[in-house]
């Protein structure tokens, strides 16, 4: 009887370990949402853009995704907040007139699967 109970406990523990290992794969086996297009393009030289826009590979969460633009000294130059477009895959940020110089776009994108990715790229205003 005791042996039988011990066997059951071991069996259940083994079952739990196996199923546990199985599902380590299932929830997170995918890549995070990543940028597919930027406007202005990364490392490009442009006239002062009226908006900065980024398009992502998947849908993003408006409450947790945002863009900011800083100048070469690190000061934030955008006056408005960024907004997520109707397709839920793009973000736009209205820009004031920029003086010539190097600017850095800082982006944070939280995909609908809750994964957060972030990065930055630069463009130059001539």
């Amino acid at each position: 009887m005791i042996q039988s109970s011990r066997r059951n406990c071991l069996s259940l523990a083994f079952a739990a370990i196996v199923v546990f290992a199985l599902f380590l794969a299932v929830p997170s086996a995918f890549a995070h949402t990543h940028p597919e297009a930027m406007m202005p393009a990364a490392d490009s030289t442009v006239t002062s853009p009226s908006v900065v826009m980024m398009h992502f590979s998947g849908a993003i969460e408006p409450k947790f995704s945002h863009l900011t633009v800083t100048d070469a000294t690190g000061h934030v130059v955008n006056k408005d907040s960024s907004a997520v477009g109707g397709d839920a895959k793009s973000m736009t940020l209205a820009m004031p007139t920029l003086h010539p110089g190097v600017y850095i776009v800082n982006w944070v994108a939280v995909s609908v699967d809750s994964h957060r990715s972030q990065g930055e790229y630069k463009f130059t205003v001539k």
Partner: protein
Amino acid sequence: MASPILFFSVLLAASSDASYALILGIGLAGWWLAAPNAEQPASPPSAYPLRSLLLVCIGVLMLAHLVRPWFLAASMSGSTGFAENLALAPTILSSTHQGTLWYLNSLGLAILLVTVLLGRKPVAIWSAIGALCLIAFAKAASGHAADQGDFTLTELTQLLHILATAVWAGSVLISGLIILPRLARHAGIATLWTYGNRLSQTVTWALIVLVLSGIYTSDRELNNSLPALWTSTWGKILLIKVAFVLAALSLGATSRLFCLQRPATGRRTTLLLRLILAEAIVMVFILCLSGLLANTAPPMANM
């Protein structure tokens, strides 16, 4: 996300998913034990410790569900602060895709708990099946499969993959490690054979769905590029995993063709139990490789 939070987040997901698979396995085992049988079952379903295990699994699912908003907040904000993430939880529940799915999952869990308390009434059984499908959908829609929108082919495939995986893992483990050894000791061989055939048929269908949905998902993650199978690390691991899956399929087919489809004998019973044990061991390797795949960036990330 910081490593300890990532670790506990994975632990949380794994605990709830393991519980989900075992609940499906328990449900199927109970059904097979209670189904009409040519031979009178030596032990009624109540003779197995399934109900206690079922309640434990539901308890784990509910506990994981209750703390999930905090982990979602940590993932979305990138913060490790307990109070900060706790304060963000209401925003997540009220205004994100994950929040909507959390409420859907709550509904599924509530229905599941009520149906388990109701017992074996037909309405309870059908409600439990509906609740389990609802929970599986919430899980499928909470992954990257939902990035292209809800109710897409990708999301449907992910739903089928989750259900098939749970049926396979849950029924083989519950049956192979709890039910079949007991039947071999205490019931007639004919009863064990009848049960084994029901298990084998169900697992065969689950594996077909699992393989087809797995091929679709892998193709998507390989970015429709077959050479990525042998040029990327993710692809190489996938190839090794496929080899182990083929080994598991061979063991399953052997137990079906050389044991269950032939007259029941004591020798074949011993062989059957050993084959199922071997299948479980191969499954461990498959699962370890799956874990490795999960933590390796697929070629899709380099699009």
